[in-house]
């Protein structure tokens, strides 16, 4: 088991003919992900790395039975692509595109919730269940199959953490990059619940950063609903207030959203917080008594 993606994932790549779409399609196939088709309007009939291209998501589903879609289309058109996927019956949409307007996401997220379509992102690196499926832009070689569930607001910081886990022999059940935007699809609470229910996951790593109050809400959720051990990390402790640290959501505004507050919220509910990435494996080993 794992969450969200696995051997049964039949993946579509929306925007497959673009530079990044095509490059990462190749990487996903190499990893062993079952990429069944691509979508690029007006380019039906082409093949990209042996994958058939369709004009619409609906056409692609009819021919391939796809159930998951990853979005590589440019940010201004990403919202439409997400809606098209949901409309056509895709169950899980992963939006990689960076710079999707917040107001587009405000429009898209409640619609998807109503339809029961799960969304990861936008502005995220994707997700992976090691040895089963990798969806997105993650460097597959650093992951190892195992029992740690990981979720993170950042892309490259996720890789750093995974690198630490893998080199310490701690494999992962599923790693999910939820994205750095202020309005996004699945967030900590939903993923915590999924990991809680996944029999393969034994411990959870939550990687947060400054800005917003998602980590504080996650802490509350952990206290009320999660029985598995959780370890945290917060990026941006040295960030000056009032500055947007790259991610649209990573800003300490009017003194709220600081790293210290988030660490305090976690520690108050018994979640141990690592001070640097390399501490994560030690904390996990102690909690899992390895």
């Amino acid at each position, binding site marked *: 088991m794992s969450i969200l993606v696995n051997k049964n994932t039949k993946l579509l790549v929306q925007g497959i003919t673009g530079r*990044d779409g095509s490059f*990462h399609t190749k*990487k996903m196939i190499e990893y062993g992900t079952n990429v069944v088709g691509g979508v690029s309007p007006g380019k039906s009939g082409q093949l990209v790395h042996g994958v058939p291209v369709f004009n619409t998501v609906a056409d692609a589903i009819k021919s391939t039975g796809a159930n998951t879609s990853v979005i590589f289309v440019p940010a201004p058109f990403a919202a439409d692509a997400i809606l098209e996927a949901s409309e056509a019956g895709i169950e899980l949409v992963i939006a990689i595109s*960076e710079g999707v307007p917040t107001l587009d996401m405000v429009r898209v997220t409640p619609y998807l919730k109503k339809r029961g379509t799960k969304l990861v992102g936008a502005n995220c*690196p994707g997700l992976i269940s090691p040895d089963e499926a990798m969806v997105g*832009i*993650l*460097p597959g070689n*650093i992951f190892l199959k195992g029992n740690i569930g990981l979720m*993170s*607001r*950042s*892309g*490259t*910081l*996720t*890789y*750093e953490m995974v*690198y630490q886990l893998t080199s310490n022999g701690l494999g992962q059940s599923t790693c999910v990059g939820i994205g*750095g935007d202020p309005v996004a699809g699945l967030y900590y609470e939903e993923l915590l619940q999924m990991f809680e229910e996944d029999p393969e996951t034994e411990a959870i790593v939550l*990687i947060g*950063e*400054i800005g917003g109050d998602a980590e504080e809400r996650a802490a509350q959720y952990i206290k009320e609903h999660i029985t598995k051990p959780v370890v945290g*990390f917060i*990026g*941006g*402790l*040295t*960030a*000056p207030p009032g*500055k947007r*640290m*790259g*991610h649209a959501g*990573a800003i300490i505004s009017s003194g709220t959203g600081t790293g210290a507050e988030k660490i305090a919220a976690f520690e108050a509910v018994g979640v141990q917080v690592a*001070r*640097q*990435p*390399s501490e994560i494996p030690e904390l996990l080993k102690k909690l899992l008594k390895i």
Partner: protein
Amino acid sequence: MVKKNTPVFRFINREISWLHFNERVLQEAEDESNPLIERIKFLGIYSNNLDEFFRVRVATVNRMAALNKSESFLNYKPAKLLKKIGEIDALQEKQFAACYVKIVNSLADQNIFIINEKNLNTTQGLFVRSYFRDHVRPVIFPLMFDNLRGSNTLEDNSIYLTIVLNDSKGIAKEQMALIKVPTKNPSRFLILPSEDEKKEILAKEKGLSYIRLDGSIGCMVNGAGLAMATMDMIKLYGGEPANFLDIGGSSNPQKVIDAMNLILSDKNVKVIMINIFGGITRCDDVAKGLIAALEQIKIQIPIVIRLSGTNSKEGLEILKSASLPTVETMSEAAQKAISLSVDFLR
């Protein structure tokens, strides 16, 4: 002796009297014994008063003039009064202009500069342009003259600018329009970015996310989360990061060159720490960009490179063949950068 039957009007006309009152305000602005901030305020009060005077009182005199009432009825002739108001106003405007120049110069002595659009440099121009686009443009609407005839869209108590609209391509003909001047928001003054903020704006134009800090270790990282964690790591080991710099999720070698130049523009930087974990950014491209950048810029300070992830094998080989030293982990990189920055100071 006063002649009998000659009507003598013993009062000063109220409009003229008011203008003299306002001149008194201007005198306070001119008075160098007043604090500078008070003098600016007096100048503002004078100017605001005058706006209202024209909007309300002069408007009434104008309407009187249009009615053409006799002098005996009003004790004055509206057309003549308008002329007189014009004369006094012209004199006061000269006085105002001289006073304004003096105050602007005194402000400059205090390092406060009021400049116009012709004094802006390129970065300030970019900043003003984006400020206009985001904050001013949404609240101004040109009213075309053609559409004004017979309509009541013009409001009393408002200030309008008359503008000429022309088409830079010369296809449409010139048209006149009015713009109602927004008086409350946005503010009448715009504070231009400081040197540091200027750098941030220029960096953004090049697709780099940069924030200057006070330390001595220049950081170049891909991804915002890792960039934050890198800063935190440097601090954790007792060093001080010189900046936050996310070179973004693409793998364009030009970006590495721009990023290098940006870090080196900060004279506090004693060591450069490059921390790349490749996902969408391919390590071989980063390595090529690094070598290209190092060929272009002479770098006198040590560099610590940490490269891992997509195509990392190829990237490390490229760096190795250019004899650039690399380290394996992020904490190693941070510790090495800190010790090098300390050595450099010695």
